[in-house]
């Protein structure tokens, strides 16, 4: 069991542990996921057909429609959202979704960005990841 510790900037608090799903491509939620299931539907993304529900979703940064946070919030409402998000750089679409999830659905989605190493290079899909959004700490365990 190999363990890697990453340190970054915690944008929203909460501590969770779960399996990683890593998109090397920037991600947009409108037309990116089916908000009813959490399954990735973006045909341009190699992860099409995989689910982000209950996982630690790692992608470089958000892209696309400014309404993407609405889709992520619907996934929160249906309990098929990721449990944490790790970005190289988080932008307002992603951060606002997590802030609203707390206010409206009492759901914490810890977000950490600006990690000391590029998360989409270091973390691999299926790694076990612990995220502490308050401290901005990420622990990656690989079997």
């Amino acid at each position, binding site marked *: 069991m190999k363990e890697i510790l990453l340190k970054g900037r915690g944008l929203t608090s909460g501590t969770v542990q779960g399996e990683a799903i890593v998109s090397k491509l920037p991600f947009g939620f409108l037309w990116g996921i089916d908000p009813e299931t959490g399954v990735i539907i973006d*045909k341009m993304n190699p992860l099409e057909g995989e689910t982000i529900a209950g996982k630690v979703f790692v992608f470089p940064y958000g892209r696309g429609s400014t309404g993407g946070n609405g889709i992520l919030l619907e996934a929160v409402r249906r309990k098929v959202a990721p449990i944490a998000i790790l970005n190289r750089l988080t932008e307002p679409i992603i951060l606002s979704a997590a802030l609203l999830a707390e206010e409206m*659905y009492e759901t914490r989605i810890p977000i950490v960005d600006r990690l000391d190493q590029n998360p989409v290079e270091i973390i691999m899909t299926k790694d076990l990841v612990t995220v502490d959004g308050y401290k901005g700490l990420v622990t990656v365990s690989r079997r």
Partner: protein
Amino acid sequence: MFLSKEEEADLKGDRGESRRIAMNVLTRLGDGFEADRLVPIESAHIVESSYQIACDAGIEILERLVSLGARCSVPTTCDPAAIDLLDWKDLRIPEEYARKQLKLAELVTKLNIAPTFTCTPYHNINVPKFGDHLAWSESNAVVYVNSIFGARTNRYPAYVDLFASIVGKIPRFGLHVEENRKATVLVKLDLTSVGDVDYPVLGTYLGLEMKERIPVIHNFPRNVSGDEFKAMGAAGAAAGALAMCHIEGLTPEARTLDEALQGDKPEETVTIDRSTLDSVRDNMCTLSGGDVDIVALGCPHASIFQMGRILDLFKGRRVKRGVECWICTNRLTKSLADDLGYSQRLRAAGVRIVCDTCCNDAPIKDWEFKAMATDSGKFARYAPINAGVDVIYGSTEECIESAVRGRFE
């Protein structure tokens, strides 16, 4: 982030729960983007008026805000809905979907938002001044108001636009800050002429190549129309994340190149010639020509002048049987078109005027269209995903010819 006593009181909930929710999200967003303080805004434009974006969560969120007595405190307009609010049955929208969108539209008006349902509020309803701070979220409108009026807004997400409107303030970061509006890329146009078909191509180029950087464009046609610029900005925002571009001699902050560059040298200089545009245009299409079954115009929403031009281009001919030709627009423009007799003549030519929504927002997969011709860089980008079609990008004139012949030559 610095907060005044009044803002602190809002954050504690002293002035109501809806202001507390709004202020909590705004200040935490501001902290995340290293804003120094909140600045007053002159207007807002929101996107969660579309059920496609809002979903059931959006209905719940707006219902909660309405029940808490929330109201917009600055002039606020809203983006297209996901259905034609009156003629949704003709658009083959499922009833349950329409019912939810109609509920959302009702909530929008209860929040004191003008029910404009358009992506082009800047043309006639919500018109900013130079230097105004705004909280706008429709991406084509963000490019337009930053670049043409010199107003200041970031590409805001859904709900942040509304919360800013409730509080009347936005965290000062990104394009609200003068230094961040500096152009860092000099784009020189080396073109003998620029036609209407070129603007969305140019926008697509900027969206793909600029990433987060801001360009200043040299040699840009001074006679560009508002409709041409809106088509360019829409394409740029859809292809990448373009939020503003300085046009030398046209953008209020870019009277000269030096002013746009804020006295610095550009980090990069690029030249765009006809061959650049040709290769970008090829990449905007998934087909190079052939039979089409849908011709989609009005993205961003068509102006009354574009409606008149489309009518002229038909020259008394009709849309070929079996082909749909849609012009997407807002209800105010439609009303002008009714008064001018355009609507009746367009309908007689076989054109469908789609109000309040468009091919990107409405669930139109059930039409099972195969090939779309469009004069919009934004439709060209999104329709393959939203409507599951192949797409051919062309000029408005080429699109009308395709509608008449059922074939893009």
